[in-house]
């Protein structure tokens, strides 16, 4: 595979309803403010009803394909653990998996047909040639004031690993979250995620 070495590829995955679309909107907006060419691709429709959801975000001086080629994602950002495992194959060698420590059983598990592996994080950590960062989204989002901000907590963690200026991230959030009280809670969630990841990076 060729070409776009200077393009950053972020694959965001999770479950319909977790806020993947908003998170990838904010990331795209931030990269646009930083002056990059940006593409973002996802599938709506059937996949919304509690199914597996993914959003491809790519930015760089010039981006062609809106889809990240398999095995070329620099970051896989997973809002749910099983989804992290499902999409791990998209990582480039040396890439980073950011995984929210949160479990949502798919219908195939709730009905007892299949099992949800108890050791997802261990499995991820045993993968060759990639870094794994675990984010405690459930706790940090509640600390921020709303469980539903898990998506911005995880986005905050991602922000600490991308070279996009902090100022653009805040502007990116302001552009996408118009209600003031929601913006406040989300900003707090973002900061908590960012701080936690920075502490983790130093360790």
């Amino acid at each position: 595979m060729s070409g776009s070495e200077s393009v950053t590829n972020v694959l965001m995955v999770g479950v319909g309803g977790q806020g993947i679309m908003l998170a990838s909107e904010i990331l795209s907006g931030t990269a646009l403010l930083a002056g990059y060419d940006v593409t973002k691709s996802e599938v709506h429709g059937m996949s919304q009803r509690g199914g597996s959801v993914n959003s491809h975000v790519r930015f760089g001086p010039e981006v062609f394909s809106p889809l990240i080629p398999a095995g070329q994602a620099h970051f896989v950002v997973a809002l749910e653990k099983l989804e992290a495992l499902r999409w791990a194959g998209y990582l480039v060698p040396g890439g980073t998996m950011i995984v929210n420590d949160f479990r949502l059983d798919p219908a195939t598990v709730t009905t007892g047909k299949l099992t949800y592996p108890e050791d997802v994080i261990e499995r991820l950590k045993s993968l060759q040639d990639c870094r794994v960062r675990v984010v405690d989204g459930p706790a940090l989002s509640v600390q921020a004031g709303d469980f539903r901000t898990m998506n911005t907590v995880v986005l905050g963690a991602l922000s600490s690993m991308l070279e996009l200026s902090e100022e653009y991230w805040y502007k990116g959030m302001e552009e996408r979250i118009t209600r003031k009280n929601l913006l406040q809670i989300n900003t707090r969630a973002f900061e908590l995620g960012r701080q936690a990841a920075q502490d983790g990076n130093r360790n």
Partner: protein
Amino acid sequence: MGRFQQRAIIQHEIDMATRPSEKVIKAGKVFLSGNEAVAHSAWAAGVRFATGYPGTPSTEILETLVGFPEVHCEWAPNEKVALETAAGASLGGIRSLVTMKHVGLNVAADPLMTLAYTGVKGGLVVISADDPGMHSSQNEQDNRNYARFAKVPMFEPADSAEVVEYLKEAYALSERYELPVLFRMTTRICHSKSPAFTGPRTDVPPTGYEKDFVRNVMVPANARIMRVELQRKMNELLREVETSALNRIERRGELGVITSGNIYNYVREALPGVSVLKLGITWPLPEKMIAGFASSCERTFVVEELDPFLETEIRAMGVPLSATPRPRPQVDEMSPEKVAELFSESRPEIAVADQAGQTLEIAPRPPVLCPGCSHRGVFMVLKKMRLTVTGDIGCYTLSALPPLESMDTCLCMGASVGMAYGLERAIGRQSKKKVVAVIGDSTFLHSGIAPLLNIVYNGGKTVTVILDNRTTAMTGHNENPGSGKRIDGEPAPGIDFEALSRALGVEFVETVDPYNIDKFREVMEQALAFDGPAVVVASRACVLIPDERRQLKPKVNLDQEACNACGACFRIGCPALSMDSETGKCRLNTLLCAGCGLCTTSCPTGALGL
């Protein structure tokens, strides 16, 4: 010059304005999905009338355009009605837009085939949003074939910036040749965002209606004349596409690739060193340009998605094409890595891939009916009654999946009603496998009325269940003639399903709340026993309609002590219920629970109660 540089130049030529919500449209560099780009560009092109039927991946076009001033937007009951309405608007001299998903064009194919003969007056563009890979569709038909079939010009943009640019040209060409234009997009264009440059609106005043017998009345004598006229137009177009700026050659290496649409982006990504002939207009094809490009390259390949449309046509021109080292799959959508694979002698290795999945099967996460979904009660009953259910297109199609598994067929919009009747004719009404048709409100109004009339007319006794949840839910809660509102939220007369059924001659017509499953079962038994066609309307608004959700107050209580881990509640497939992996007992997610109470009817111990 790269794509991004091209964008930057256009950007300087456009002034910035403000947002659509303020009735002034944001111009300049905007991050838009392909669908939003269609809306912006249609408005800018002076479109005055827009209509369509919701269908993934096309739905957001009209949902966006309705926020713009100066354009009258509508949801039509189906795609045929939409195209015919637009044909009328065009006849009246205004620019019009019609949107639909790929299978919608099958429904609208009847007017399209002859509209090519009559031609149009005000520019008319038909958006066909194809779904390679079937993310949200029942098939992956390649609608490029329709352009050749109907003999109409076809445009294929590659991204949002091109959507804006091409649509403007599509309207100009439509009026120049007085032909409807097919504007083909795919899921990855419709639902991908990239920067585009939008401009101000150019008003195109109505030119008015003029009677023209030969042109507009397609009786055989006139159709023969207009058929020749269509051929003349296409021959003229053949000359124009040779010099169109929308077909362009990019010189890089000795190897050449001919491509179109989003596949161009994959080619640029995967094969940075090749020369490219990028076709923006893919019908009719520029023969001389293609032959010239091929002769200037050492070897020439076609890279496309789904059918070998370009390849077949180009080979038929006698232009020598080389086969890619690996054959191109004609099924499923393309991707950058699939394009790379076509040209690699060995399979590329993907480093981290599959390490995770090697040792275990990762439980799939299929979409499911929402907690509190009004369809759930219907399918719980149909399953219990062991009925054969011919199904249709909508959220309720999910009931065919485990654990409900209570739908036997899904073919196309409206098929449930005709199929139930035909199946009953074949196996007999007294068969143990009693047949019922299940169809959603919007789908019934789209194409379920005629087959119901057919049952009445031909003496059938089939039972049809209409799921009236007052919205077109699957595509994102769009209004329809049954919902009581128009696309802009203005009130509209909502259709009365009971009165409509009676008017068609159905004598047994009952409306039931599907949350009341005992009553629903009772009515179903009466309908099946009735000596004549029957309609049961399961009436309950979609739980995702905000006003509806607020009305559902009493939450379900779970008494963990009383639960005996029998698992009966899991068989209704509610996402709010899950199995405790250690005890096998029920766990209730109170955040998800909508309070419909259907699970309490499935619980034999009373552990789940209201």
